[in-house]
């Protein structure tokens, strides 16, 4: 009997195919959003974790501002005094302290101007962190010979595509009317802002910006020492200076956790948007089903005249609504995965790899989504279906 009911419903849906597809579309959009969020959300987390691993597992980072809101400290432009930072090197377990600064500057090359990031660290320790902790190497060229020479290293994209004419090793660039010689460039680091950045010494950076101190510091911890204990000691020691009152000393684990929290909030927001759109899809089903009941009032009368019980009519309409839900769910998942794949591909072409990976898709979650859309369909279809089922046959037959 139920197989026959499915066949009857299928015939009806095909008969009103345009309307059926439009209703399905309402569900597709909601589900598509959910799938994209699930698929990319995981990817974003993976990408960020990957980037964090680049920091290296033996490093502690210090920056102004509160632990959970690092940006505010940066925007306020608070800076540590260099001597306060170097004093930390006396702490047991600390290898060395690398003071760093970041900024944005306009760079001129052969008459063309572009904005790009500046990363400033003094070279001796920075090279050690790059090569030993982060595994980043120069692709070509060499590092500057010292912190006071007018030499810089740049990212791979800076060389190839930031300017109309590709930059070559030995070329001269101008930053804030000061000339620098490009002496080397890094291999692709997987992050767009790094790939087009300029790396120069902290001394040169401070001269350029007429500034002092450092906005952040990276502390290399000696092997065999516990990162957390060293971090705590740093915190205590740094608490004695009074230039930067609020500062954070964090380990890679902690960053991971903070980023995870931020991402969860964003994910939650997107999920709410997706659920609201699903709700709208559900209302769409309800609307279609009500119209459908109204339109088929006469046929409901006929079906009842030839022996359909209230339950049979109810079942027919519920199957119809459920089918719209399931088809919408399946298509939504398919389109969602395709969109996620597309977004992943676009991101990859921009240098952000691994945003979407089909292997890491949560298939159980997708199955749950299909069940969910079926339920949305049935719930949305229930009231119209019941209204149809309760019609008096003679009254329904009179309906024109």
């Amino acid at each position, binding site marked *: 009997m139920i197989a*026959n*009911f499915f066949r009857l419903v299928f015939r009806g849906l*095909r*008969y009103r195919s345009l309307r059926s597809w439009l209703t399905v579309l309402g569900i597709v959009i909601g589900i598509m959003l959910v799938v994209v969020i699930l698929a990319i959300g995981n990817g974003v987390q993976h990408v960020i974790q990957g980037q964090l691993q680049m920091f290296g597992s033996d490093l502690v980072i210090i920056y102004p501002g509160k632990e959970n809101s690092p940006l505010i400290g940066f925007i306020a432009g608070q800076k540590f005094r260099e001597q306060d930072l170097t004093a930390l090197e006396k702490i047991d377990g600390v290898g060395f302290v690398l003071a760093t600064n970041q900024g944005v500057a306009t760079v001129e090359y052969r008459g063309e101007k572009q904005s790009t990031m500046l990363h400033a660290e003094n070279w001796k320790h920075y090279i050690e962190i790059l090569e030993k902790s982060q595994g980043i190497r120069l692709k070509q060229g060499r590092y500057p010979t010292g912190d006071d020479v007018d030499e810089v290293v740049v990212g791979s994209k800076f060389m190839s595509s930031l300017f109309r004419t590709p930059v070559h090793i030995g070329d001269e660039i101008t930053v804030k009317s000061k000339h620098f010689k490009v002496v080397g460039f890094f291999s692709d680091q997987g992050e767009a802002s790094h790939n087009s950045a300029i790396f120069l010494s902290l001394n040169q950076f401070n001269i350029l910006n007429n500034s002092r101190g450092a906005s952040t510091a990276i502390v290399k911890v000696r092997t065999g020492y516990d990162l957390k204990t060293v971090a705590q000691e740093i915190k205590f020691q740094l608490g004695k200076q009074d230039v930067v009152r609020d500062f954070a000393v964090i380990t890679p684990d902690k960053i991971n956790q903070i980023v995870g929290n931020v991402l969860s909030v964003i994910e939650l927001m997107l999920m709410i948007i997706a659920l609201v759109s699903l709700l709208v899809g559900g209302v769409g089903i309800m609307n279609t089903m009500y119209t459908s009941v109204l339109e088929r009032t006469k*046929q409901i009368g006929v079906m*009842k005249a*030839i*022996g359909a019980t209230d339950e049979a009519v109810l079942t027919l309409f519920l199957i119809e609504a459920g089918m719209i839900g399931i088809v919408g769910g399946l298509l939504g998942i398919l389109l969602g995965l395709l969109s996620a794949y597309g977004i992943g591909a676009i991101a990859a072409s921009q240098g952000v790899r691994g945003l979407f990976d089909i292997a890491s898709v949560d298939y159980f979650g997708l199955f749950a989504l299909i069940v969910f859309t079926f339920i949305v369909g049935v719930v949305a279809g229930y009231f119209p279906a019941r209204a149809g089922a309760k019609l008096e046959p003679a009254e329904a037959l009179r309906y024109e």
Partner: protein
Amino acid sequence: MPLHPGQTKTDLVCGMTVLGLARVVTGTYRGKTYQFCSEQCLTRFRKNPKKYFGPPLLELWNVWKIFKTGGAETQALRGFDLHVWEGDFVAIIGASGSGKSTVLNMIGLLDRPTKGQMFVNGRDMNALAEDDRARLRSRMFGFVFQQYNLIPWLSAYENVILPLIFSDRTVDRKKVEREFDQFGIKQRMTHRPHELSGGEQQRTALLRALANDPEIILGDEPTGNLDSVTGAKILERLIDLNKREKKTLIIVTHDAAIADLADQIIAVKDGKSVQNHQAHRRALTH
């Protein structure tokens, strides 16, 4: 079969209340006198008097149907009485708005009376729950409508097996195909209603009405939308089912020629039955 207060004042054959009629005919049986509304009923009584002391297949007793639309009330039936006997061909005639279709809806369990009672084989229909009425409907009644009322998104074949699906019976495709063949529309089985002619649609509707092998066939102006030749063919099939397969046939019609073929004519006027020959003519012409 409950004995109701009006019994002795009732025409045993057609069920009509004879009390207050201007003209009645009488007949005696085993020393007792009985009143009838017309010669027609008396003649039928004389042929087989015993039959009319048992329970009728269908009985409507003092049935009222009041429709309320907005603030207005329409009394479609006003104390309607009717007996239908097994195997009869009954024609219900009357002018538009007389209430004859409402009578057919009551008989076919498509509507519930506002007041009054209905019995099928002596069973009180008011006491039945909606689903039991639906099941009884599928087992006992086959409907043929003036507008055919086929489901537009289903093929002719699917329309015909619909009653079998609803009563959860197995579908024997070969058997259904044979029936389509007998009705001369086998090659149209897979077509949708809009691809069929009126005659083909009505034959499909008739096949659908017969799918569950019902005891009673109800036709609401079944030939009303057909040309005279096609109409005559459909009518012929209906009468054939009545005569050969002893199915009870109840037809609502405007057509005096069809009514004249019936065993029993019930004329409806202003929601009541009026049963004598003069009344027939009046009901038909007004």
